[in-house]
C-alpha cells in the first residue's frame, strides 16, 4: 500500500505532530522527517510522516506540467 497524503503541520510535540488534512485532524509520528515546522506540509503514510513536501518544488512541478513543449 503506497497511500500517503499531504497534511499540514499544526503543532509539534517531540516526535508527534498534530496535522490537518483538508479539515481532518489527526496525529502523526514525525521521527522520520527532520527540520519540519508548523505550517509546512508532510506526506503521511499509515500514521507516520515519510517526507516533507517541498512547496517550491510543487510549484515548479506544476509549471513543468503546464508547459506546451
Amino acid at each position, binding site marked *: 500500500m503506497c497511500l500517503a497524503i499531504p497534511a499540514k503541520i499544526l503543532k509539534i510535540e517531540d516526535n508527534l505532530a498534530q496535522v490537518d488534512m483538508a479539515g481532518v485532524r489527526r496525529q502523526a509520528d514525525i521521527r522520520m522527517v527532520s527540520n519540519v515546522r508548523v505550517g509546512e506540509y508532510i506526506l503521511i503514510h499509515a500514521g507516520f510522516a515519510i517526507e516533507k513536501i517541498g512547496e517550491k518544488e510543487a510549484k515548479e512541478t506544476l509549471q513543468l506540467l503546464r*508547459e506546451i513543449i
Partner: protein
Amino acid sequence: MKFVDEFRDRAIAERIIKKIERFDSLKVNLMEVCGTHTMVIFKQGLKGMLPRNVNLLSGPGCPVCVTSQEDIDKTIELAKDENVIIATFGDMVRVPGTNSSLEKERGNGADVRIIYSPSEALRIARENPARKVVFLAIGFETTSPLIAASLLDVRKEKIDNFYIFSSHKLIPPAMEALLESKEVRIDGFICPGHVSVTIGSNAYKFIAQKHSIPCVIGGFEPLDVLQSIYMLLKQIKEKRAEVEIEYFRAVHPEGNRIAQELISRVFEVTDVRWRGLGIIPKSGLRLKREFSGFDTEKELPLKTKKSKENPDCACGEVLRGVKKPTQCKLYRRICTPEEPYGPCMVSSEGTCAAYYKYG
C-alpha cells in the same frame, strides 16, 4: 485539497496528452511497477486518454498480491491460535489461502483486526497483555521503516506480547528479475513514488545503466502519471536511459536517510519467494538476530500443510505483465471481488480488481 487538486487539472492533462501524442513514431511498453499507480491509471481512466502506441503494463508492486501461498497459509494458521490476535492492514483479510482465509477464520472465531497504522497494533498489545498480538508486516520500502520504528518502540516500552510476521519485500530486485526473465519487452519503468521517498532515485541507477532501461519516478496524482509517461517517451526518443524524478517535491536522489537507518537497524536483506516470480535473491527483509524475539517464525512456529495455488489462477503471469486479467480463465467468470480466487482480485491494488471495477 492542497497538493492534490492542482494535480488533477483537466486542462493541464490535455496539454500533457498532446505532448505525448507527438511521439507517434514510437511503439512502447511502459510498466507501472506500483499497485497504487495501477489504481490511479484505472480510476482516472488514463489508459483511454493515451494514444494506441503507448501500452501500459501492470507490474508486481502490490504487496499482498506477491505474498506467496505458503506465507498466506502461515498467517491463517497463526490466526487459528486462540491466544493470538492478528493485526493487519485490510487487504490481507480476504485473500484466499489453500484452504481458508483470514476472513473465514474470523467467522470461526479467530481474532483478526484491521488496522490503519502500526501504532494501533501496539495499542492492542498493551490492552491485551495476556494474548499474543501478531502484526502482519507485509509491504515494500514505504512501510518497512514504520515497522522498524514500531519494533524499536515495542522494545523500549518492554511490551512482551508483540510479534511480527515478517514479509517485507524490495522493489528494485523485482524489477531486475522481470528484465532478466525477458518474458515481456519493457521499454521503460514508472517507478513507485513513495517507495522511492525511502530508497531514493539512486537505487534505480543500475536499471538504467546495466540494463539501459529509462526510469521515471512518478507521483500518484493523474498529472504526475501522465507527465511520467511523457518523460519516459522523451528519454526513449532521445535514446537516453536515465533515472529521472517527476515526483521531486517528495523524492530525493539519496532518499530518506532516517528511514533507511531505521530499516537497517532492525532488518537485514535476504532471499524471498514472490508469487509469480519465484525466489528472487536479496529481495526481502528478515529480522536481525537481536530482534528475533519478535519473529513469529522463531517464537510461534507452525506446522503447515502443503500449500497449493489454484492452477487456473493467472495471478503470477498478471504480476509479471505477461497476461492481462482478461486472459485468465477464471477472471470474471468465477473469480470476482465477492468470490476471489487469487490475491490480484482481492487487493485494493490488485490488477484484476482494477480491471474488474473500472474496466
